[in-house]
């Protein structure tokens, strides 16, 4: 059994090691015992870019130069800047290497780690000033406006080492709760903090816990929704990969508060790295005694089990998730009864998502006022967004609530690439909607997003430019919900399909004006009548694109034109004879042999054969092919 004193001792022993990493400006005295600490991102994005080779090369070079006692290599979770991966930071300076290749490691080791000269040409160029001096990462556009609460440890600690988590204050919130606070105190703190669910609806977390606490039962459960299903969002994955213990600690706090001794984390099987790190974290936590029986010598016991999802978006819905943990088809159940009364295995249950949990230990440690000081009137704290689509800095950002979309897109995100124009941002995934350019200055919080016809959702934020067709985007999300509807209730099962067919009719150039009325009618019907949130929100992408881009719908229906040139049936490719040099490149790249012509003579496209894949245009070096 671990005592609070022992926890404190672990913290002290590792504090200095980790402290230096929290300050990217390098202005903290380095008392870590190492000359350098090299942090390599081991998140899924960087793993895909080849960070494992980087780590291997690093180890090899360190061994070669016998630097083991001077340099510590740490594989961390996500830094956020996935597009620049593999990513590597060297402390104490906090120099930031991007797109690191194994081949350049010997140079970095010799020049930087041995000779003390950062290799400027390999650094993230935004951190290299014109005068050759090196900026801190926190001063770059990407990080400047961010405020890391939920992600505070991601990219800072080694997620596979519980002691590094403890060094940052980990598990002290649990200790405080167990020894100094009553369950009512915890609920009150959460209520005062203003924390709202980060997974979708934004329900006040404190109220949720209070309900479950009030239910009387011999058994209760604490569940964590880590089945991040929004395609294009990976906030939760990054937290699980980068800071798994923060979730475990928060779940234990929840268990104490509502009177549960068992927790379940329902995590996507498609997140193998997250699953692995969670398993390691649970094992270490149990071994140390911060999970298990009589935690910190109290009579509170708490265990956590992992359950893997199997690829069903609907399991992000709370009752479906519980049905799935129970071993059934993940079909939602009608509410009431609410999970706080009758949830998992028929017992009172609370379910929060990963990001919500990740906030809680800090709220306990730093107090409700601290948390409530961030954000807007109704939305406190920060929110993590997965920034993607047509944006320069693709990655993970955490911003205080109330930050404007413009700040996110133009400053943090670095704007829309290739000189294209920002058209809209989609938030909330398949349940959300789009925010058009005219509302780019709206401060982001729960209420504002809903007023605009979108929603916070779990935090996917996809940027679209003038080349994206909004009808096509609506169709994309509907295709997703048709596929992911559980099939239980009529409005969602059949409604999504009929809605998809109507939109497909429009993008195929066969739409009629009365179809638009039918679409509106169907959308309203699905929203009012569906059994669960998936069906109730499935029409949002359609409603919101119709609200802001009705002209595009009408162009498709009346003029049979896709203004963005995306919908295949409404576009055609032509070769401008004057520009064509007859290089034959287009003909050779055409997958269906639809292009003919003699060498050095203008070519022609057979429109009957053409499948409008755009390969010819992409390959033409003379701009001779146009899409109409």
């Amino acid at each position, binding site marked *: 059994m671990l005592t609070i004193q022992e926890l404190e001792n672990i913290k002290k022993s590792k504090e200095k090691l980790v402290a230096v990493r929290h300050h990217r400006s390098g202005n903290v005295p380095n008392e870590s015992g190492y000359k350098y600490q090299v942090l390599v991102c081991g998140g899924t994005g960087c793993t895909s870019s080849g960070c494992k080779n980087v780590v291997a090369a690093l180890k090899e070079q360190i061994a070669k130069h016998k630097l083991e006692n001077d340099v510590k290599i740490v594989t961390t979770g996500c830094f956020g800047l996935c597009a620049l991966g593999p990513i590597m930071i060297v402390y104490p300076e906090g120099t930031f290497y991007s797109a690191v290749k194994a081949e350049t490691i010997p140079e970095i080791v010799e020049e930087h780690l041995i000779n003390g000269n950062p290799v400027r040409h390999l650094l993230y160029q935004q951190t290299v000033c014109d005068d050759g001096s090196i900026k801190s990462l926190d001063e770059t556009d990407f990080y400047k406006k961010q405020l890391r609460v939920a992600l505070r440890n991601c990219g800072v600690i080694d997620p596979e080492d519980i002691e590094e988590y403890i060094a940052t204050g980990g598990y002290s919130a649990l200790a405080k709760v167990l020894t100094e606070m009553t369950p009512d105190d915890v609920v009150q703190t959460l209520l005062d903090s203003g924390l709202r669910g980060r997974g979708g609806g934004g329900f006040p977390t404190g109220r949720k816990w209070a309900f479950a606490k009030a239910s009387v039962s011999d058994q209760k459960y604490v569940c964590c929704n880590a089945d991040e299903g929004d395609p294009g969002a990976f906030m939760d994955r990054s937290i699980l990969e980068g800071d798994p213990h923060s979730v475990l600690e928060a779940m234990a706090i929840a268990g104490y508060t509502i009177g549960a001794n068992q927790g379940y984390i329902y995590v996507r099987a498609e997140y193998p790295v997250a699953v692995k790190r969670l398993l390691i974290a649970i094992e270490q936590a149990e071994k140390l005694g911060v999970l298990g029986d009589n935690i910190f010598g109290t009579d509170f016991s708490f265990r956590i089990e992992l359950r893997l999802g199997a690829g069903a978006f609907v399991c992000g819905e709370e009752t479906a998730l519980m049905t799935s943990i129970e071993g059934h088809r993940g079909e939602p159940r*009608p509410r009431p009864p609410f999970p706080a009364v009758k949830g998992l295995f028929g017992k009172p249950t609370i379910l929060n998502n990963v990001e919500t949990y990740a906030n809680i230990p800090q709220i306990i440690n730093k107090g409700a006022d601290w948390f409530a000081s961030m954000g807007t009137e109704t939305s406190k704290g920060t929110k993590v967004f997965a920034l993607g689509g047509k944006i320069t800095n693709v990655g993970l950002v955490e911003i205080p609530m109330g930050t404007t979309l413009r700040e996110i897109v133009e400053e943090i995100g670095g704007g829309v690439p290739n000189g294209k124009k920002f058209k809209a941002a989609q938030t909330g995934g398949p349940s959300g909607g789009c925010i058009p350019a005219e509302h780019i200055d709206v401060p982001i919080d729960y209420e504002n997003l809903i007023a605009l016809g979108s929603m916070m959702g779990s935090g996917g934020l996809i940027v679209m430019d003038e080349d994206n067709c909004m009808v096509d985007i609506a169709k994309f999300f509907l295709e997703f919900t048709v596929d992911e509807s559980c099939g239980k209730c009529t*409005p969602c099962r059949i409604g999504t399909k009929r809605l998809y067919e109507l939109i497909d009719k429009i993008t195929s150039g066969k739409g009629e004006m009365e179809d638009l009325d039918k679409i509106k009618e169907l959308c309203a019907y699905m929203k009012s*009548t569906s059994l669960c949130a998936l069906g109730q929100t499935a029409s949002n992408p359609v409603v919101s694109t119709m609200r802001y881009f009705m002209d595009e719908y009408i162009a498709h229906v009346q003029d049979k034109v896709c203004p963005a040139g995306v919908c295949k049936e409404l576009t055609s490719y032509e070769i401008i004879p004057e520009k064509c040099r007859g290089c034959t490149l287009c003909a050779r790249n055409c997958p269906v042999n639809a292009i003919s012509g003699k060498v050095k003579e203008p070519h022609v496209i057979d429109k009957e054969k053409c499948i409008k894949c755009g390969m010819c245009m992409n390959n033409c070096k003379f701009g001779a092919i146009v899409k109409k």
Partner: protein
Amino acid sequence: MVTLKINGKSVTVPEDYTILQAAKEVNVEIPTLCYLKNINCIASCRVCVVELKGRPGLVASCVYPVAEGMEVLTNSPAVRASRKMTIEMLLSNHNKKCLSCSRSTNCELQRLANDYNVDENRFGSEAPRYDIDDVSPYLVRDNNKCILCRRCVAACSKVQGIGAIGAIARGYKTHIDGAFEKSADETTCVGCGQCIVACPVGALREKTNVDYVWEALGNPDKHVIAFTAPSIKATLGECFDMPIGTNVEGEMVAAIRQLGFDKVFNMDVTADLTICEEANEFIGRVRNGGTLPMMTSCCPGWVKFVEHQYPEFIPNLSTCKSPQAMFGAVLKSYYAEKNNIDPKDIFVVSVIPCTAKKFEVTREQVNKTGDFQDVDVSLTTRELGNMIKNAGIKFAELDKEEFDNPFEIASGAGIIFGATGGVMEAALRTAAKKLDPNFEGVEFKEVRGTEGVKEAEYTINGTTVKVAVASGLANARKVLESVKSGEKEYHFIEVMACPGGCINGGGQPCQSDSVKNYVDLKTIRAKALYDADAATDLKRSHESPVMDMLYKEYFGEPGGEKSHHLLHTSYVERHKY
């Protein structure tokens, strides 16, 4: 108690009521499709949605609990628009071959479509997506008509505890079928047909054999016999919109005769014969240390259930054939001989409230009379009703007629065979008399009633008999498990697969949810049988003159050699998964 307002009307109801129940109290009808009281409460069809003042969206009244001060609108514009759209959605992927559908005019979706003036094609009409499965001898599945209410799934898994069918795949591709889309008879399906009577539309129906019957009736060389099971008289009237529970025995006999059958016999007679054999077998088992508890074997759904799920209990099943099978054997042996007819020229049609009987007639273990099927065709109540309509017979106006000789008169014991507890009571009447010739009692009320499991203990002449009666196979499972674990000890167990027994069988007329959810079909139908029993003086099977005749002229004695060959059967173990 809580007080709420429904369409402005105040009503006070218990706090565990749903809005649907509360609405019923103030005579407000809310349509339902997926909801079956106590069986299927999943709120999936969304037809029963209502508006709650102050709450966005609509809620499913079938499961939504009432609350103090709640204001419910069941007929607001939003509610009507939503319901209409739900019906349109269902119709958009429903195979709307209503004219030729077995459920036309008795279809819950059709009724709603009419009530809500729905344009059936506004959201298109897609081509059938599923093959019709008519491979098994008793069940036809047309998933192109399925509305995915899952009432059949609940009937199979919750009521019957079998789970031969379930929801498969997801989203728009969701469909109901056996595992790996196997046909019913390749699964653990016992053929009870509870899924059919649960189905609100024509997606499930019995495999009809009516054409064979018409063909036989038109063949002058065939001697065509019909016999009707005890419960048909209590339910056939429902096919002609007569009040539930009307005893129509006289009209039924007249109608069958008008259809052109050469003979119309009463199966209550072979129910008596079953009792003679079964009571004898039971006493023998008790006296000779045979396998106990003995379990009845007249229900083919139950028998197949044991064969699939509890093969270890096969020795406990009575070896007696069911009354249907006995009748087939009697007709093609005794009756054929006596009347000098080649049994191959006899065409036997049973009318049974059951779909499992369609399977039973094909069992090789019951067809031992010759190299033919003892019963050629087994019809459901619904099929007979259909034939009568087809022949243009005005059923309700028919003069009552009587069954043909010699299988006309039956005891009250034979009559009550159609309700849960009836076989047990019939057996007890005979067994008690055999154990104690002075025993005069004929009413064993402890085993009556529609409860799922009933237990009783009787001491007759020093012998104590512990009995259990179960209906609905989920209940049967409970009883078997309690026997298996040693928790309970019985001498005799009666099981009928369908809840309430044959009066609620899978071959009985389909009643819509608007009836089933509010009317206790089982009790009302059973009452017709118990009333008929009360009206007859002949109470015990073995005292029937027909039994006397059969044993004297042909079978000798219960359990004798001829009985053994013609009236008893055997069972086989079947796969459980």
